[in-house]
C-alpha cells in the first residue's frame, strides 16, 4: 500500500505533495534529538517553499509514516489528516507564531479551523468560582457564534470544551500529545467526542513522543499553547496561578498581535503579579462580557 509514496516525479507534478509522505518526513526530522520547533522553523525559513520531504530521503519518510499509521491504527485513530505549510488548506494565521508549525495532525471537521474562534484557558486546579465563570463566559461566546478553543487539560480547559458542547456550540481541542494519546486519561472520551463531532489538532510528532520520557514530553504542552493562540483571534484567561503554563499563551497572544483578555477576578487576587504585568503589555481587563464582545466585534477577520 505504500508504493505510491514513491511519487513519480513527472515534470508537471514535481511540486505536488503527498500528505502521507510529508507526515513521514516531518516525523523523520524529529528523530534528530536536537530538533525543536525553533530549529525546524529556522530550517524552513532558510528555504522558502520547502516542505518536510525536501529534507528527508523517501525511504526514511516511508518508514516513519508506516510507524505512525501503525500506532494510530492501534489507538483506533482511523480517520485523520495533516495540514502542511505551503500546500492544501493550511491556516495562514499559524504563521504568526514565533516558530510556526510546518505540519499539524487533525481529526474531525477541518473547516472549524477557519471559523472565528476564541481560546478559553486557565488553571488545572480551578476554584468553584473559576469554573462558574468559565461556563458563563463560554455560554456568552457560543451565543455570539464563536468557536471555543482550549487545550483539553483538566480544570478550566475541560469546562470550556464541555460547556461549548452542552450549549450547542463548536469547540476545537489543541492537544499537547499525539492524536493517539490523551492527557489526562479521564479526558479520553471527551477527546474522542471532539474528534468525531468537532476538531482536534496536534503538532506533536508521534515517534519522538513515544521514544522519549514524560519529562521531555511535558515540553509539548506549552508549545501547543503558542499554536492555540495563533489559531484564535483572542485568548481569555479565566484563572491562573503565578507559574501557570497558561501564561505562556498569554505572552504568545501579545507577541502574535492577538487580543488577550484577563478576567477581573485575577487582578483582584493580590497574591498574583502577572495580571498587572500583562495589562501593561496590552492585555484587556474584563469586568463584564461586554468588554470582550466590544473588542471582538471590531475585529475584521
Amino acid at each position, binding site marked *: 500500500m505504500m508504493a505510491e*509514496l514513491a511519487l513519480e516525479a513527472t515534470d508537471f507534478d514535481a511540486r505536488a505533495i503527498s500528505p*502521507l509522505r510529508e*507526515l513521514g518526513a516531518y516525523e523523520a526530522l524529529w528523530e534528530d534529538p536536537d530538533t525543536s520547533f525553533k530549529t525546524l522553523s529556522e530550517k524552513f525559513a532558510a528555504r522558502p517553499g520547502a516542505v518536510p520531504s525536501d529534507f528527508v530521503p523517501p525511504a526514511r519518510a516511508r518508514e516513519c509514516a508506516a510507524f505512525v499509521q501503525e500506532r494510530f491504527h492501534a489507538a483506533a485513530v482511523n480517520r485523520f489528516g495533516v495540514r502542511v505549510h505551503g500546500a*492544501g*488548506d493550511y491556516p495562514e494565521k499559524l504563521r504568526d507564531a514565533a516558530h510556526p508549525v510546518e505540519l499539524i495532525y487533525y481529526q474531525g471537521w477541518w473547516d472549524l479551523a477557519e471559523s472565528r474562534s476564541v481560546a478559553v484557558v486557565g488553571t488545572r486546579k480551578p476554584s468553584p468560582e473559576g469554573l462558574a465563570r468559565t461556563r458563563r463566559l463560554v455560554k456568552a461566546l457560543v451565543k455570539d457564534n464563536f468557536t471555543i478553543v482550549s487545550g483539553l487539560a483538566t480544570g478550566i480547559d475541560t469546562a470550556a470544551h464541555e460547556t461549548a458542547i452542552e450549549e450547542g456550540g463548536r469547540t476545537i481541542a489543541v492537544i499537547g500529545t499525539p492524536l493517539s494519546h490523551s492527557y489526562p486519561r479521564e479526558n479520553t472520551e471527551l477527546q474522542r467526542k471532539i474528534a468525531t463531532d468537532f476538531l482536534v489538532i496536534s503538532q506533536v510528532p508521534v515517534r519522538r513522543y513515544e521514544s522519549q520520557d514524560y519529562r521531555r514530553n511535558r515540553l509539548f504542552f506549552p508549545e501547543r499553547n503558542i499554536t492555540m493562540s495563533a489559531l484564535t483571534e483572542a485568548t481569555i484567561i479565566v484563572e491562573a496561578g503565578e507559574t501557570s503554563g497558561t501564561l505562556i499563551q498569554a505572552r504568545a497572544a501579545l507577541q*502574535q498581535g492577538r487580543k488577550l483578555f484577563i478576567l477581573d477576578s485575577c487582578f483582584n487576587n493580590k497574591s498574583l503579579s502577572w495580571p498587572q504585568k500583562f495589562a501593561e503589555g496590552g492585555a484587556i481587563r474584563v469586568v463584564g462580557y461586554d468588554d470582550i464582545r466590544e473588542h471582538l466585534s471590531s475585529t475584521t*477577520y
Partner: protein
Amino acid sequence: MTSGSTFPQRLTKIDDLTRADHFYLAVEDECYFLGDYTARKGYAFSPTNPLIFNFKKKMDRRGRPEWPYKAQAIGTTAAAFRAAMNDKARETLTFVPVPPSKAKSDPLYDDRLVQMLAGIWPGQSVDVREIVIQTASTDAVHDSETRATPAALQARYTIDRRLLAPVPQIVAIVDDLLTTGAHFKAVSAMVRRVFPDTKIIGLFIARRVSEAVDVEDFDEI
C-alpha cells in the same frame, strides 16, 4: 495579524491518508486536488467552501446579484492551477473535462470547466478537448455524484471522434469536486478505450471529505 487563508496554490496527491474518502478510487488512480471541501451542515468557513459553491453556481442564477462570484471563482481557480503547474504541464497534458450534467443544447449547459481551463494560461496554446460528451441532460440533484455508478455514467457518455488526433502524451481528466470518484472512473474508462496506452490522471479543484454536506444543498453561503 495575518489575514484569512487563501485558496491553496499547490496540488496534493490522493494517497493512503485520503483515498478512503473516495469510494471508487483505487491505488492505481493518480489524482490531484487543490483544496479540501469540508463544509458541514450549517458551517462553511474555509476558503475552499465558498469557492466551490460559487464555481458550481447554476446557470439559472444568471443576472442575479450573486452571479459575478461565479466568474470570480473561475478566475481564482485558473490562477491557482497556474501557480500549481509549470509550463511543462501545458506542453504535455491534454485536458479532458468531465462532461457537465446538462447537454450542450440545454439552456442550463455550463461550460465552467472549459472556461477555467482556457484561463490557466491565457493567450497560450493549451490542449483542451471535450472528448467525452454527455448525450442527454440529467438532473444534477437526483443524479448526484454520490449516487451514480461509473457504469451508469458511462452508459450516458459518448466519444467525440473528431477530437482524437493527435494521441495525447498524458490525459488529465478535470472536474471541480472529487466525491466518490465515479465521474473520474467513468470518463477514464471512455478515454482508455480510445487511447489504451496513454497515461491518465485526475485533476480536481477540491475533494469533498466523506460526510461533508452536498454543495447542492447550500442555497447561500
